[in-house]
């Protein structure tokens, strides 16, 4: 069990309605289903991951978050989760707006480009950082829009997005991941 899943799951109130955007193989959904709420579904672009979710007995909609979030009505979920995929979208700003429209609250996690190991890698090696959370080379990474925790906080402030930071540690230097609960 990834530690991140535990933290995310603890942010969700029991019996609430949840959408996991980019739910991958459904591990997080499965954990939440078993422990927090069964009213959860996922949106996933990869066919093989969709099959993995179905094997786990999860409700999944095959689709593209950049195009398909618009079919959900305003505030139709209590929580919308976006776990480590924001940086891979062509238009992350649009996705954030859609998350905040569809969900009453959005839980967003990002791989932190400001993490000290990332900084040191770039400083001393002079090459694009490769870490546990950022395992790809520059030429094959799906990550188009890397940001740091500080960048994300600045963005939210600029756009008047509320960050509900209770129990969250977003120390820009020492965190590999930023985990945010945001709302409009």
């Amino acid at each position, binding site marked *: 069990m990834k530690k991140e899943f535990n933290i995310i799951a603890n942010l969700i109130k029991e019996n609430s309605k949840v959408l996991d955007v980019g739910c991958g193989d459904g591990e997080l959904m499965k954990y939440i289903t078993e422990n927090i709420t*069964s009213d959860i*579904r996922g949106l996933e672009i990869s*066919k093989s991951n*969709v*099959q993995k979710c*179905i*094997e786990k*007995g*999860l*409700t*999944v*909609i*095959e*689709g593209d978050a950049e195009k398909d979030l618009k*079919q*959900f*009505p305003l505030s*139709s979920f209590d929580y919308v989760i976006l776990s480590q995929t924001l940086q891979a979208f062509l238009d992350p700003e649009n996705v954030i707006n859609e998350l905040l429209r569809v969900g009453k609250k959005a839980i967003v996690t990002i791989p932190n480009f400001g993490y000290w190991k990332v900084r040191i890698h770039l400083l001393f090696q002079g090459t694009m950082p490769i870490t546990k959370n950022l395992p790809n080379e520059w030429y094959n990474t799906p990550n188009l829009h890397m940001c740091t925790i500080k960048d994300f906080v600045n963005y939210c402030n600029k756009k008047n997005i509320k960050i509900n930071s209770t129990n969250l540690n977003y120390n820009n230097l020492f965190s590999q991941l930023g985990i945010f609960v945001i709302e409009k």
Partner: protein
Amino acid sequence: MNNLNKVKKLIINKPLKLDCGKTISNFPLAYETYGELNEKKDNAILAFHALTGDQFASGINPITNKEGWWSYAVGPNKAIDTKKYFVICANVIGGCMGSYGPSNINKKTNKSFGTEFPVITINDMVNAQYHLLEFFKIEKLFSVVGGSMGGMQVLQFVSNFPDKSFTAIPIACTASHSAQNIALNELGRQSIMADHNWSNGFYQENKSPNKGLAVARMAAHITYLSKKGLQEKFGRKLQERDDLKFGFDADFQIESYLRYQGSVFVDRFDANSYLYITRAMDYFDLTKQFNGNLSKAFEKSNTKFFIISFTSDWLYPTSENREIVIALNSLGKDVGFAEITSDKGHDSFLLDVPDFLNTVKNFLNTSYKKINEKRI
């Protein structure tokens, strides 16, 4: 088709008002069941067949002596597991496997109805099959499931009876028959009607429009396959010959295959039924039934949906299946969706496509478990 007297039939006494305005009563609905209805009567699945299907979804069809049309999906330990679920499948009205259709005898004339049979719709088919619930004393079905025209019936069923099924699986279908769909059906109908034997629909059993019906089947069969599937299976391979014969015999394997498909089809299907059922599909427009807003069709329902399409299906493509997903999502309904990779075209839902069969199996089994957990 002489053994049709032996198939199971429910005689529906209650008058059924059809969309065309006519009312029918005292009519037969042929059906078959698989598995056993449990004591709680909560394990029933109503499976709807496609254009040329019938009530014999699984096992050996006693009329044709061939495997049932959905044998890959329905049976013991299969995706729709008959050890667990009670599967009911009925021949649609307008059909020719024992249900009320144009080949039935019109008591007023003592001849087949032919084209005097009333035009029926998907809505009429579903309303007739609803009587099966009363007959088996099933308060609520566990699932309604079907592909192609069967999928259309699934959509219509949930719309007509919003609280009569816990789950629904429409497969490779559409909420509204497209111009292309109508065009292809019209091609088949014209082929039948151009056969001299058709005689405006009043043909004798020993002089039926088999040529026209065979050509209709050949044309339709092409639409059920993908270009890639055809190319891989047949390519330009020659039929039992080393070279072209410079004539119009079946030089190519694909020609021979289509001719064979056409010839076996006429043995089991009635040409007038083909006209009536394709017409019902063409008239299907659930979106229009709700004044252009498909979501309204599902507004009153809490049925849990799973929608399935196939990558190589160009007859009912993913985009049209996705419109149903969008309509349900816009209401915040419980819906799952998967597009299955397959190069077997529209026919994929009838074939051994493991990802498809697993999807159905997992959705059904998980949903059934959840329903039972809630009860406890």
